[in-house]
């Protein structure tokens, strides 16, 4: 492994769920691997590994991305939000609370990715009139194998209400 780096490792600065981190990382790692292996944040899941299922969705500078096809080095200087950071002081985020109330979780494997997709969608559309179709389109990058889509849709609708 060669390049302008230290034997294939490089130092990056980022914040993870609000906490500043200085990390010495293998440039071959995906953001998903950085989160799960280096930081122990195993809430974010690996599903397909090729950007089809959205189980690994996280926010990088408030942009929703599939962390499995995102190089870890790209988060240098950026802020990452994962499902672990959404609850504050023991209270679920409004999106998480709506998922619980609407029974939008079945096996739960897709849920961390869905929560981040919904969080991104809700924060982008707060106060706007949004159709069910727009919600579906906004979650098209996330798959639920249990097919709990109807309740997920309801949870997003609930989260959008002021």
């Amino acid at each position: 492994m060669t390049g302008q780096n230290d034997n294939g490792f490089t130092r990056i600065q980022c914040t993870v769920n609000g906490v500043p981190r200085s990390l010495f990382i293998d440039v071959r790692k995906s953001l998903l691997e950085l989160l799960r292996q280096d930081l122990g944040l195993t809430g974010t899941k690996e599903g397909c590994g090729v950007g089809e299922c959205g189980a690994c969705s996280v926010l990088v500078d408030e942009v929703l991305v599939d962390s499995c096809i995102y190089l870890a080095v790209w988060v240098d200087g950026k802020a990452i939000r994962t499902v672990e950071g959404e609850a504050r002081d023991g209270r679920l985020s409004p999106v998480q609370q709506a998922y619980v109330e609407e029974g939008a979780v079945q096996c739960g494997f897709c849920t961390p990715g869905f929560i981040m997709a919904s969080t991104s969608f809700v924060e982008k559309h707060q106060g706007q009139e949004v159709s069910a179709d727009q919600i579906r389109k906004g979650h098209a990058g996330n798959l639920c194998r249990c097919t709990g889509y109807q309740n997920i849709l309801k949870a997003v609708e609930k989260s959008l209400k002021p």
Partner: protein
Amino acid sequence: MFDLQTYHKAGSVEEAIALLAANPDSRLLAGGTDILIKLRHGKSGFAELIDIHGLAELRSIRKDAEENILIGSGTTFTDIIESKLLQRSIPMLCDAAQSVGGPQIRNMATIGGNICNGVTSADSAPGLFGLNALLQIHGPDGLREVPVAEFYLGPGKVDLRRGDVLVAFKITPENYAGSFGYYYKYAMRDAMDIATIGCAVSLKTAASKVSDYRIAFGVAGPTPIRCPKTEQAVLGRELSAELFDCIAEVVIGDVNPRTSWRAAKDFRLNIIQELAKRATHKALQRALHPAGQKEGETI
């Protein structure tokens, strides 16, 4: 982990050109939504990467003093969808961007990567063909401009030479001003799918006649294509129901789709005829009822 052999981060286009020249087996990495997947699948030729991800100089959508619209190669599909300039001037490109993958992919994938891949199913390609987009390519010998139709040399083959970096797409005013277009994608699903057929139509009308007409397809041949016979047949014709029959009849002579596991040739031909009509109809609707136009205003 991705099986990278070499990795260099380029801080500028100039640096990327130098790094490409110094590393003969390397390729550029931008959004990563194709390259990182190929690398993961162990495809050869992707293990040496020059990273231009997020380079600010490649990520902009603007109009220059000559009214050309310039779209940086590192512009993401989400940037295109949200661009007020494109929504106003070339909504067809927003339609195409909207049809790509899902939100996460649109947030990452770039229009430059979509074209440099050289695949016939690139959703941004038919629109750029219809707009006669010029590709601004920086290389070791300076800047050159290549029309998008000449950029595609064959399936997966594009006119990029060693050390070349596609920096922007230039759309000149005669190719978009007063034109109305639409991109229609047909796929098995409404999201996260590759086009079975993609069709872009860009047209102008004057005195109830078609005064300019461009139609381009993705997946109707080994590369994206324009349809010169259809364009010739439609130009100058009255707006009428027969116009659509004419388009569906003539377009067959312009295309060359193949059978693949995704769809049979006959099915694709059927979709081509249907999309040619529908995309034309949608473009005409935009021409006759432009969004935001004041009442009583004529085209």
